[in-house]
């Protein structure tokens, strides 16, 4: 009697633990889906806050999956808004880098621009498949779609990206094969 018993909400502990473990990947997933259309950190924060507020409604047996689904949905919801504006988010790949890494930076920028032209559900499926290594069934669950739909989205996304990036890849390969400077460097030399 008289002993003080602290009543700790178990979902709060699960939530905090899951944030520590998964926040890095969640930001990366949000960046993959959003591109430069919104701040990935803001989207992840809003998604996790919503999850915390209604934490008693959810099944916390797979906190990583739950958080990923929430972030994906929040990102897609944001992208479907009628008015979107570009934001400056921190993209490590596009930051100024030493000469040896400039080519990689340029390649990443090319891929980023090409992926930004895809429909948002194509991007989401691609990120979940290739970055999160989810199965088609898990992707379908996360995106509230059927497995054949997911397969089609992935196939079309890859074919469109290939169309957009083939000219760049070929020019890069030829330049590397001949040991010539790239298009931008040629312009510099012409001056």
């Amino acid at each position, binding site marked *: 009697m008289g002993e003080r018993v602290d009543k700790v909400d178990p979902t709060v502990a699960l939530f905090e633990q899951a944030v520590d473990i998964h926040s890095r990947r969640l*930001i990366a997933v949000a960046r993959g889906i959003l591109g430069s259309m919104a701040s990935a950190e803001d989207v992840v*924060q809003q998604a996790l*806050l919503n999850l915390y507020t209604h934490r008693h409604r959810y099944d916390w047996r797979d906190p990583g999956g739950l958080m990923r689904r929430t972030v994906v949905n929040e990102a897609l919801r944001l992208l479907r808004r009628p008015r979107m504006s570009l934001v400056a988010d921190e993209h*490590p*790949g*596009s930051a100024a880098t030493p000469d040896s890494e400039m080519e*990689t930076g340029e390649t990443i920028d090319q891929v980023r621009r090409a992926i930004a032209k895809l429909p948002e559900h194509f991007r989401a499926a691609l990120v979940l498949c*290739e970055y999160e290594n989810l199965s088609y069934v898990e992707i379908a669950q996360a995106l509230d779609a059927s497995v054949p739909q997911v397969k089609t989205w992935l*196939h079309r996304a890859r074919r469109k*990206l290939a169309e957009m990036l083939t000219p760049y890849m070929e020019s890069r390969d030829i330049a590397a094969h001949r040991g010539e400077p790239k298009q931008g460097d040629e312009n510099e030399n012409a001056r």
Partner: protein
Amino acid sequence: MDDLTLRTLEAHLDGALDGADDAALLDRLRIEPELADAVGRLRAERALRGALWAANEPTPVAVMRLTSHLDEAIHHARRGAFWGAVSRWGTTVAACILMGIWIGNSVMRDGTPIAGPSVAGIAGAGGSVVAGGGGDGVPSGYHVTLVDDRGQVEAVQRFPTLEQAREFANDFGQWQDRRQQVRQGRIQRVGDPY
């Protein structure tokens, strides 16, 4: 390269083919150089995208910024929920107090308990009224009318003689006075003479 073959190759790279299909595809890759080239191209495309996914990974600073902002947002939400609860409780208590006042007002009037019935007068059987029990007698009988504080008749008591009617009216008046004094706390009742 037809679409179906490309889809099969993509599924192979995604690890989505089952064991038998995957083994059959690997056999074909060994003997079909065109197919092997296609897989090589798909792998190269995937490696390009992989570079972007890796570049999208946040720095530790960005992760710390997120967790810090999230902590603040959660704290803010908790504080909002607390004051919301306080506000709801305050409204409930105020509503209870108002309800109590309203009920009290309907039972009490001007802070005084509603009076019980009082003697309006003693009347003869012919209808003449002898106010306060005074006046000459009327031989055929008398009645005492009891009214409430709004003047509504509550009861009529009949008596054969004026004397009895007066005695009842006096006794009733005394009883009412005593009851009023007890209610107002001016005296403490220790016994009942009636």
